Structure formats: C-alpha cells, structure tokens
C-alpha cells in the first residue's frame, strides 16, 4: 500500500492531476447528505471580540436551518435557507422576515461574511473552470493550488484560488478575487479532524482583506455527519417553533 502511494505520487506530479478529480474528491470528503454542526463564530470587532454559538442542520447544499444559542441577545434567532430564499426569525419580535435585495448584503451577525456569501450553494465545478497551478506546503501539509475561473456570468467572485490538502482532500486556504485580480477575501482552514471516514477543518478564519481587522473565526465544536434530520426542520413553520 505504502509502496503504491510512493509510486503514485511521482506519477501524479508528472501528469499534473486532474483538477476536477480533486474537486470531486473534496466534495466527496466534505459534502455529506446531512450534517448537524455545532459551533461558534468569533467576531473580532473594532473594540471587542464576540463569540456567538449556533447549531445548524443541513441537507445537501440547498437546505439549512441554523439556530443561534448564545449570547442571550442572539439566542433563539433562527435562520432558514431553502434554495434562493432566506428567512430570519427573531424571538424578540416573534416575526419571520425574508431577507432579500439589499438586505442580503448585510453582514451576518457583524462578521466579515454577508448573507449573500452564505447563500452561495452551487458546486464549484459547475461554476468554475479549474486548473492546477502548482503545489505548496501549508501548515506542513502538501497542497495543490487550484485556480478557478468562472465559466458562468452570475458569480460573485470571478476567480478563486484553493489550496487543497493532497492527502486529506480538505481545503486549507481559499482566496477570492475580483475580476481585476484584486484579492478581496481570504479563508484559512485549520485544525483538520477526522469524523468517521471524512476529514473536516474545525477552524476557519474568514476575512475581508480590504477592511482593517482580524476577520471572523468559525469553530466547529461538534459535528455529526449523515444523520437523519426531520424534514419539518426545513419548513418555515419550524422557525417559530
């Protein structure tokens, strides 16, 4: 087995691996049919740092339901995403409001991520042409550098670069670029852990590089993959429950 890998590596090196195969392997690794994730979001603000905890349920990439658990201020706020629609429920007002239009550009809980960033749910290979641009070691792990260029028009970032761990098929770094090539946002993935047969990064730092600041950390505290989720979870009625 080891020998096989040793033989394979120079083979891949020489041939330059198929970028779409890499993307597929990443999807295979990361995309479970269902997922229950508990985590926290650390927002580094101008004057203080806030930690927001949440639990989210998702099925595929179309459906997700997130409930905020703490701090007390955000507890009970729920968010439902079904395809292109996003609803937010606030217990303080006991109302569900659909987030649309200009409101999608607002940041999620003060983080560097907008609702719109969160809404993107197409598979990368459906949106981008990919090429392997080389290799680099990130945090001691050999990575392929994938360059993705948009093949469809309706896309927020025309160009992306992804550093994919050659062994675990996990992205370790992601950079989002403007059409002009200007770097706009950067995500750094770390603390990759094993969950059953899958590898999953448990810490992501997401940052708008044009703005001053340290960005936002997403930390996974519990992750259950491929579990059964009640379909009721993905209905508007569940928001008010």
């Amino acid at each position, binding site marked *: 087995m080891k020998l096989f890998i040793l033989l394979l590596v120079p083979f891949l090196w020489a041939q330059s691996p198929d970028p779409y195969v890499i993307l597929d392997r990443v999807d295979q690794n990361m995309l479970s049919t269902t997922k229950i994730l508990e985590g926290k979001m650390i927002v580094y603000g101008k004057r203080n740092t806030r930690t927001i905890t949440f639990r989210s349920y998702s099925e595929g990439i179309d459906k997700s339901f997130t409930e905020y658990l703490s701090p007390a201020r955000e507890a009970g706020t729920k968010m439902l995403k079904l395809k292109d629609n996003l609803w937010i429920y606030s217990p303080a007002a006991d109302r569900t409001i659909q987030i649309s*239009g*200009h409101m999608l550009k607002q940041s999620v809980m003060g983080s560097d991520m907008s609702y719109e960033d969160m809404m993107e749910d197409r598979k990368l290979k459906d949106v981008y042409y990919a090429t392997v641009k080389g290799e680099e070691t990130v945090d001691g792990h050999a990575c392929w550098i994938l360059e993705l260029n*948009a093949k469809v*028009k*309706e*896309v*927020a*970032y*025309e160009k992306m670069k992804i550093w994919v761990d050659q062994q675990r098929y996990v992205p370790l770094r992601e950079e*989002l670029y*403007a*059409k*002009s090539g*200007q770097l*706009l946002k950067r995500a750094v993935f770390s603390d990759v852990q094993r969950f059953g047969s899958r590898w999953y990064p448990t810490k992501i730092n997401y940052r708008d590089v*044009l*703005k*001053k600041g340290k960005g936002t950390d997403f930390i996974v505290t519990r992750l259950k993959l491929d579990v059964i989720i009640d379909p009721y979870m993905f209905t508007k009625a569940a928001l008010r429950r």
Partner: protein
Amino acid sequence: MILVWKLAYKNLIRAGLKTWLNALALSFAFVLIIFYNGMIDGWNMEARQDAVEWDYGYGHLRNAGYDPADPFSIQDGHGILPEPFRKDLTPVLVWQGTIYPQGRMMPVLIKGIEVNQETVKIPSEILKTSTAGYPVLLGRKMAESAGLKKGDPVLLRWRDKNGTFDAVEATVVGIFETNVPFVDGGQLWMSLKTLQEMTGLHDEASFYIANEAYVPEPIDGWTFIDQETLLKPVTDLINAKKYGAAIMYLLLLAIGLLVIFDTQAFAIFRRQKEIGTHIAMGMTKGEVIRMFTAEGAMYSIFAIVLGGLYGTPLFIYLAKNGISFPVSGDTMGIIIAPTIYSVYSAALIVKTFLLLVISATLVSLLATRKIATMNPVEALKGKAL
C-alpha cells in the same frame, strides 16, 4: 394738479431737516426691501445657474426605472437609448461601489459621464487626458470626507451587472470645486466608457443631460424631466426665505409709514390757518385734501431719492463684490455659493417703488380725513381742531 404737486414740494422743502428725517425713516424700508430681495434673487439666480451648469442642464432624460431619490433603483434603472434619440444629450451611468480610503469602508455612487461633454461643468476633460489607469474626479466635499487628495490612489470595489465583484486601484486625477451638493457628496466621477466596461453595461446610461438645443420627444422607457421641474425644489427653498423676510420689512415699512401719518396729521393741525386761507381763497376741500395727500406721497418720493443716494453705492457694491458667506450649504443639501452677488431686477425696483408710493399716499389720505369735517372759519382762526 401740477399746482398741487408744486405746492406740496415747496412745503416739504421748506420744512427742511424734518422732511429729510421723515424721508430717511421711510427710506430704510425701501433700501432694506431692495437689499434683501436683491440678495435672495441673487442667491436664487446663482443657485439655479449652478444647478443648471453642474447637474440639471436643460433637463434630464431618465430611464424609467431610475429614481435619483431611491438608491435601490440604481441596480435596474439603466438602459440603452436608441441611437436616433441621442442628439444633444450627455449620457451618465450611475452605479454603486465602495471605496477603501485608509482601510475605511465608504459606500459611493459612481457616476460615469461622457468625457467629451460640454453640457455640464464636471471637468470631464481631465479624465480624457489622464494617463492613470482608472482616473476619477471628486468634488471637494467628498475629497475632504474621504481624506483624499489629487494624485492619491484609492481602492474601488464594485459589482458588475452580474453581481461579480471587481476592484481596482483608481487614481484621483482632479478635485473640483462646486456649490452643488448633488454632484459632490458621496460621489465619484469617471469616464462613461470605463464605467460601462467595468459594469458590462455597454452603451447603457441611467440618465441623459439635455443641452440647450435638445427637443424632447416621447421615448418608450425614458422620461424627460424639464429644467423647471428639476429646479423647483431649489427655487421653492429659496423662495421660502422670502416669506420669512417679508414680515420683517413690512414691519419696518409700517414704522416708516407711521412717521408719515404722524407728520401729516400734525401738519394738518398746525397748518389750520393755511388750510382756512386756501379755502377762503377758493380752493375746494377736495383740492386741499389732494394737496396734503400729495405732500405725504411726496415723502415716499423723497425717501426713494434719499434711499437711492445712499443705497445705490451699496447695491452696486453688492452686485459687483457680493457678500461672502463663510461656509457652503452642503451639509444641508442646498446650493449656496460662497459669495452671493445681489441681483436687482427692474420688476423688483418698480414693485418696491409702487409699494412705497401707494402705501404712503394711502396713509397720507388717511391723515387728511379731518380736513373734510373742518369748519373753514374756525380753521382760519386756528381753532378747528
């Protein structure tokens, strides 16, 4: 009648200093009315002129979806105006973007304007000659609030028509000085061609600025708003000032008229013998009343002459050198030039003149009522009143 005026004139001149003091009191009202209205008219004219020269031109032809008051309309408020309709029009495309001066995030309106235009004073020719990659122009207020100077680079981020992010380092190639806040605050001007390329909106515009020769015709999907309609809020705002001030100088006029009334009522009392004599010599009471009324009315003429004497140099000075205001009205969203040059229309002068003469005549007439009931014999003795 000429006799009546001559007599009135002689009587007044004979009274000497007192006449001139009375006329002086009335002349203040005269000068003030002209001064204030001249200033407001001057402001109005400059504001209108500025608004026309910088923004409105001879009207705007707007895409039906574009509403400058509604920022959410920018996304869809643009389109291609068919070529045959583009005569005498300067295209402007409006788009949303964000600049990052010193790491601060500032939302801006990007306005792309045809660089060869001569309809408005936006110095678009600088954009044409600049060798910088993405040359932009800023108004002074905008430059100040963003902390940018001429030659400074600034990162500009926007999304094209498909929502794809794009960002470039733009260069501030010029900072223009304007009194019109609608083209300054929160805005960034660049070449129309560049903005069309940046957004992918080829050949499109949000609105067109008409020049003098433009003849509006109905075009599907586009609405023409003429200059007067565009100017209405500007004019209304300034005219509002007139109403407030009117009360001020009408009061002043009232005091001036009080002086006349007072003087005339007194003159009639003191000159009973004279009135008696006039009647004894065959003048009718009506003629006497007319004479005294003419005297009163003549005060207004004297006031105008006197006001003209010291007012004219003042007015000329104000029309030539203006009054400087230490700040501009930008923060209030109004157009106010740093220096306002007064404008005196013939209508203003004639109106003020008539106002003064008529009101002074009426007041004098009011003061002469007693003559009608006067017993000429008693009057001759000076004991009628």
